[in-house]
């Protein structure tokens, strides 16, 4: 499966068998063709959703969005361990309208808690694309900013904003819960001022993001548009 003599890191990895297009015979004897990379997914690229309402309404909506941040409970790295104190008595993040949702459909804030290995980056991208606009991304820890102490690791990405639009970084290894709370407050300010349009930015520069992602994820075995 792995080719050890091949030193060119940019060669395409052969696609796995279960992902190839094939014809399947259903339980009722009915034959149909299955293309796993196309099933159940929208075909077109993400559309921009510019703010359409008049300013005061948008401001009101932005206030509502900023006051009810639903975080996708996806612990991608070390930082996940500080998420739990956030939800619990010491630093009770629920006071600030912050809740945890288990499914990306209902969340609108993705917290990349720490370094992202290439394998996790693929899942994080899917989770991000399944979230509904407007959506925000917070990068946690030095390793999302410039690699941190994994600057020479062969399996972790070094700049998060190359692969998805980041609204806010929180430095530190790892950031304390107080820093997270402060970060939430700053994110609320950004959202209220209407500057948190990461989803539109992502849709606008979709090709560049996809190019960056495919440059790192060598076995791209998922559709380009999945939401």
């Amino acid at each position: 499966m792995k080719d050890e003599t091949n030193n060119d890191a940019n060669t395409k990895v052969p696609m796995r068998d279960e992902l190839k297009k094939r014809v399947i015979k259903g339980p009722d004897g009915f034959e149909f063709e299955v293309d796993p990379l196309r099933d159940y997914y929208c075909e077109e690229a993400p559309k921009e959703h510019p703010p359409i309402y008049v300013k005061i309404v948008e401001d009101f909506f932005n206030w509502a969005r900023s006051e009810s941040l639903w975080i996708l409970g996806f612990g991608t790295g070390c930082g996940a361990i500080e998420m739990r104190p956030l939800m619990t008595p010491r630093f009770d993040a629920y006071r600030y309208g912050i809740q945890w949702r288990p499914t990306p459909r209902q969340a609108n804030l993705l917290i990349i808690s720490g370094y992202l290995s290439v394998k996790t980056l693929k899942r994080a991208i899917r989770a991000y694309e399944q979230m509904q606009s407007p959506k925000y991304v917070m990068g946690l820890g030095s390793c999302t900013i410039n690699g941190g102490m994994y600057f020479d690791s062969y399996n972790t990405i070094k700049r998060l904003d190359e692969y998805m639009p980041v609204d806010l970084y929180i430095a530190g290894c790892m950031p304390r819960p107080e820093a997270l709370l402060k970060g939430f407050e700053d994110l609320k300010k950004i959202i209220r001022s209407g500057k948190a349009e990461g989803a539109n930015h992502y849709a606008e520069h979709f090709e560049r993001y996809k190019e960056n992602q495919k440059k790192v994820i060598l076995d791209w075995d998922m559709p380009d548009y999945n939401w």
Partner: protein
Amino acid sequence: MALFEPDRSQYPDKNPDGTCDIDLTSGKYLKVWQGPNHPGITGNMSVELTVCGDEVVEGITHVGYLHRGFEKLMERRSFIQCFPIVCRICVPEPDFNEYLYAATVEELAGIKVPERAEWIRTLILEMGRINSYLMYLGGQAGAFGLGIVGQWTTYVRDLMLDRFEELTGARIYHMFILPGGVRDGLPEGFKERLEETLQEVERTLKDVHEVMFQNAVFKKRTIGVGYIDPALFEPFGVTGPNARAGGVAKDVRKDQPYLVYDQLEFEPVTDTASDMFARSDVRRRDLLLSVDLVRQILRKMPDEGPIMTKLPNVLHWKIPRGETYLRGECSRGEYGYYLVTDGSGKPRRVNVRGPSYTHAMALLERLIVNVNISDVAGLMVSLHTYPPEIER
């Protein structure tokens, strides 16, 4: 092999190469991914479940979402440069990495650690064990929808983290135990404050015992579920509380006393049921044991004396060729470091033997078959695995 294979009487059998050919198009089976983005998963790993109705036919674990290549990174760092990054290997209980790395380096370099430093190391390890167990109890209860226990335990865990912060200056990654000794002694009045925190821990554990372990529903969910046959312990390298819950008193603190454990009196906590409830209960009692050990340490440890030996110039520090393996009893089982040096200033090879490595991969794939899908999360938590130490 037949002994180790689960009962597959009603399901298609495994092929010798480990795959299991299940005809998904028959409409009888359903493939469900539990994780990596799933609240019922421990950390960042995933299990690929094939369910038939409500029962799991096959579970394949996928790890590597946290792989950073530590063992490679350490090969291109000098010995003292490795010390800050080793604690990142296991997030919830980082101290064992620091201690074992320091101990292996000391053994190969022939460094003797002052006694007081050893006492402080033992204190840190036991406090870390308390933290890890508190986190486990919350997770085990949360896996069954009893979130309130998680609230309580995380609260007292924060109190313990305060003590850590007081002692080491950091909440999670302490970077306190470095080759040659420890960074600092106990601050003023630390023992009293730690004693108060321990009492708070015990108080919370009483509540937890009433809400969780005497709860009819919790018993209904856990007793007799997730049974590990003690015959599987040796073949699958089961250690720590998972083995102790099955009646095997495996405890490195007793078997091969390291640090100052030979001067502390304690008995390994054991149970016989070897199911989920027994594992949870063993961990709860082991947590109380750790509290007692911390008290003993505070009582017996010397207040005076050096805490650091003079190291050679760490920039030119070379260690002669050799290889060694040291183990410690962390909260999940046997944690080991295998260090190989080649006379240069950098380690030749470091291999971390995390207990989750054996528990969460081969063992879990056996246990998960024929389990109700509702119990998968609880079963994974009850093995108490931390993915970061599987893939490093």
